[in-house]
Structures are given as C-alpha cells and as structure tokens.
C-alpha cells in the first residue's frame, strides 16, 4: 500500500517537473490544430471533423470501458439516441439545433440511466452481450419505426444546421472549430475527473470490485454514473453528427459502429485519454491510407486487432496509472 502511495506521489512530482516542457508541447499542438484547417483544404478539414467526433465518442466510451472496466459493446445506441433526439425534435418540433445539443446529451444520459440500471450488476461478458442486445433492439426499432418518428430505414432528413448568434455552423471550417472546442472542453473535464475521487473510485472498481466495495465505494452508483456520463457525451457527439450530416439513418448506428468505438478504446489503451486520441487517429487515418486497397481494408483491420492483442495488449498509449498497476503486479 505504501509503495503504491509513494508511486502515486512520484507521479505528481514528475508532472510538476515536466510541466514547462509539456506546456510547450501542448502549445505547439494547439497552434498546429488552429492553423490546420486554413492550410489543409475542405476535404481534410472534414476528415479532421469526423476524427474529432470519433474522439468524443471514444472519450465517452472510455469512461465506461476504460475507467470502470465495464464491457459496453453497444455504445452506438447512445450515439444514435443523441442523433435522433436532435433530428426528431428539430424536424418535428422546430426547436433550434443549438439548444438540442445539451438536450441530446441529457436524453442520451437519461436513457443510459434507465437502460443500464437493471443490468448494471451483470458480470463482464454478460454485460457485453446485453449491451449488444440493446444496440440491436434500438436499431431494429429505428428501422421498424413504430411511432412514425424515425423515418424507418431511410432515416430523418432535413435537419437544420446550428446557429450561434448570426453565425450558422455550416462550412467545414466552422464544424472543425466547433468540434475542436467541444473536444478540448471534454478532455479538460475528463482529465479533472480522472484525478478526482470519482476517477480513482472508478479505477479501483476496474481493478478489484470486491475490494472497492469493502473500502466503502458505492460500486453500483459509480458504475451508473459512468454509464450516464458516457451515454451523455455520446449523445452530444450524436447531435453534432446529425447537424453535420443533416440526414441520419439507422445504418450509421449498427453493431459494427460499436465495435469500432470499442476498438478505439482498447487500441489506445484502457483509461488513457491520449490513447483514445491515438486510437481514433489510427481508425480514421488507416482507412484513408488504405483507400486504394478498399476491399482489403476490413480484412487488414481484423488482422491488426489480433496482432495488437498478441503483441501489445496494453494499447498504443497506455495510461500511467494502469502502467504502474501492471508493473506492480509483475513485480510480485
């Protein structure tokens, strides 16, 4: 226990020492991000925007899978809930989409609470299969369209763009900065959360649920909180996606979308925020690079997942806390 404490304290010290160097790196990175859309042209700006949306989705799933270790393989359901909330409330009720951004987050988070409350006690693999089930139920419901709201297989079209004062967010560059700001905000909040009592409780549950419970952590509430926050952030990403595309259909929210998101988290390293960014980059850029080998893309992708698990299961950029824990385990 004391050894662990010492390590965590050291982690803090090294942070303070590295701060100026790190600040420089982050500053340079931010500068690049700010200049990028002016140099890159609309196509790559759009690619970067979608990359940003995937970062948001990856971050949201990382709360659930990475921080708490709950296997959620149906995350596209919450993404869909956010997108459809925006789409339906905008096209049917005429509510401006900018107001629907938080509303979508709240609706998706609320559904996250309602849907996962009864199943939160399930163990790893069972939870995984149930979340797949929820994803499928939602997708089939969207296709069958029982209340005449979702437009069936064709989806909803004619979603209005967001309006901020006199600025309509419509051009690639607008979306780029919009997504950039929201991503930076999300990353900031999540980094703070990671270091808070809640973040530590989450990691404790991931490592040893029984011990966490014994130490007085309310495991159930903590897990639910992770699901609500993760679903909410995914809902916000869905809302942005809906206004960007202006048309959404159930096809965008299949099980494979959930698999991609899950892979982003695992590829980057569980519970690692930079890992999510690296993971999303790999998932976005790889297909772009393999454009000439379009047919073999998924083949390569599947093989890469296997190779990755065999040779680098901790992810491309594992979180520090995770590394320390793993290190301690092998020392014993």
């Amino acid at each position: 226990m004391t050894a662990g404490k010492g390590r965590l304290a050291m982690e803090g010290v090294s942070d303070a020492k590295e701060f100026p160097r790190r600040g420089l790196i982050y500053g340079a990175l931010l500068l690049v991000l700010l200049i990028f859309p002016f140099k890159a042209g609309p196509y790559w700006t759009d690619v970067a925007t979608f990359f940003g949306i995937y970062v948001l989705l990856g971050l949201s799933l990382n709360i659930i899978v990475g921080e708490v270790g709950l296997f959620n393989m149906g995350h596209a359901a919450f993404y869909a809930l956010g997108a459809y909330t925006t789409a339906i409330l905008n096209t049917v009720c005429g509510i401006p989409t900018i107001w629907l951004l938080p509303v979508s987050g709240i609706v998706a988070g609320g559904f996250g609470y309602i849907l996962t409350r009864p199943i939160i006690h399930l163990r790893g693999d069972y939870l995984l299969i149930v979340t797949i089930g929820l994803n499928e139920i939602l997708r089939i419901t969207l296709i069958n369209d029982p209340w005449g709201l979702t437009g069936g297989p064709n989806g909803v079209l004619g979603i209005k763009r967001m309006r901020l004062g006199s600025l309509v967010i419509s051009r690639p560059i607008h979306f780029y900065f919009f997504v950039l700001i929201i991503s930076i905000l999300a990353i900031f909040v999540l980094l703070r959360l990671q270091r808070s009592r809640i973040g530590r409780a989450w990691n404790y549950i991931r490592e040893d649920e029984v011990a966490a419970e014994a130490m007085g952590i309310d495991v159930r509430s903590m897990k639910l909180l992770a699901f609500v926050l993760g679903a909410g952030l995914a809902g916000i990403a869905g809302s942005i996606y809906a206004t960007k595309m202006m048309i959404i259909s159930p096809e965008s929210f299949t099980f494979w979308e959930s698999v991609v998101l899950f892979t982003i988290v695992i590829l980057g390293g569980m519970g690692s925020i930079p890992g999510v960014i690296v993971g999303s980059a790999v998932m976005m850029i790889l297909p772009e690079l393999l454009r000439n080998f379009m047919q073999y893309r998924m083949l390569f992708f599947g093989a890469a997942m296997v190779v990755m698990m065999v040779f680098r299961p901790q992810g491309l950029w594992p979180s520090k806390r995770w590394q320390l824990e793993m290190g301690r385990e092998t020392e014993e």
Partner: protein
Amino acid sequence: MELFLEQLVNGLTVGSVYSLVALGYTMVYGVMRLINFAHGELFMLGSYFGFTLLVSTNIGALGAGWGLIVIVLMAAGAMALLGILVERVAYAPLRESGRLAPVVSALGVSIFLQNAAMLIWGSRYRAYPVWAALDRRWQVGGVHITLMQVIILGVSIVLMLLLYFIIQRTTLGAAIRATAIDQDTARLMGIDVNAIIRFIFIIGPALGAVAGVMVGLYYRQIHFTMGWTYSLKAFTAAIMGGIGNIPGAMVGGMLLGILEMLGAGYISAAWKDVFVFIILIALLILRPTGLLGERVAEKV
C-alpha cells in the same frame, strides 16, 4: 392451432440450428471463459464451403443420402481445421493475458473471416442449388413438414446425443468437465489442458459447419453476414440454458427457436429479433444463471 403447430415445427427446425451453434459457444466459454465471436463466422464459412462443394463438384450425383453425408463431413472437417488454426493464431498466445484481450482478438478474427468470405464469394446473396431429391414435403394434420426439416432435426438430435455421451460417459469427457471446473487443478491431475482446448475447437466449429450446410439447404440463401445474426442468437440460447452447460445449450436453442417463431407468427415478423433480445435481457435480470443453471462456478 394450425398456425401454432406450423410455427412449432419451424421453431424446432431453426432451434436445432441454434443449438448446434450454441454448443460451440458454450463449450469454449465453459473451458476458456471466452465469448468466441469468431464461432459464428465458422458457421457461415461452413455454409459457403458446402455451397462451393455442391456447385463445383459432382457430389450431388452420389444421391441425396450419401451426397449429404459427404458434404456435411467435408465442411465439418474443413471448419475443424480452421477452428484449430484460429485457436492457434488468435487465442493460444493470449492464454495468460486476462479476459479482455481474447475477446478483442476474437472480434478481430470475426471481422477478418467475414471480409475474407465477402472477398471470396462476393457481397451478394448466394443461392444453394435446388437438390430435387431433398425437395419433398408432407402434410400431417394440416401442417406442412419438409424433408429438410426432418433431416435438420434428426441430424441435430443425433449429434447432440453423441456429444452428450462423449462428455458424460468417456474419459475424454471427464477431462473436459474437469478443465471447465478448474484449469490449474486439471493440469495438476495430468490433463493436457491445451489438448482439451484444441479438441473443443475441433468439435465446436465442426458442429457449426454442419448447421451451416443445413441452413443453406433449408433457407437456400446464404450471405456473408449471416454468421453474426445466428451467432448472437446462438449465444442467447447458450445463456438461456446456462452458459457452460452443454445440455442447457441444446434445450436453450430449441426453446429460443420456438419462442422466436411463435413471436414471428403471432405478433410480427419484423420484430422477431427484438423478442430474442428482450428474452435474453429479461432472463439475465431475473435468472442470470440460465434456466438449467450455470455449470461454471465463477470465482470472485
């Protein structure tokens, strides 16, 4: 009443397919605690393999009986080989690395195999050729029964009884059961755990391939994504019966097939997959160890 009986027959047919696929899931889970997502793809590939044999060779000329046996055996053999290969490449190196890594690896294999099938056989539906000798139907008390339905049910029951006998009555079966309860202790007792795992990866895919060929002959149409649909349902069936529990998977598959078809017949066919998942979720909330009880004791 007629609708009920008709759907019951349909349900038993599709249910025995679920059972055969579910057995592969439940055995792997019982021994390795792994959801082998690639299993559904082996079922699908078995179906395609049978299709290729039927279309490009002259096996059909052997007559319905022998022809069917040869095709089923060849498909089963090929998938057993592929099963061992998958285990060797994707799971064996991950034996010691927790539970998450093998699941992701399994997903990777699943994506790989699915796209390989798409590249080999194309992304459109492929149709099994009509096999006149098998195209027979009877009417029993107002209910239509086809020869293929009888064959599927019969073959499934025979295979399941055989497997049950192997698991319960032979030394090999005892070794499998011991490995499922506790791998380390089994190893200390002189059981070659790796050999047991390889055996599981022969039997599971072989049964899946048999189911795949029969689905092709029954529904006539096969598609490279069908592995995933069937595998989700088969997995549901395995959980219904209590995962790791071999007779449970058999009963669970039949039950699921019947419930699905009754739901499709009486309520709505468009929602039949939703029934399956609602049943699954309700079951996991109300009785998480399955209907027959989970064989595997979970360590805390």
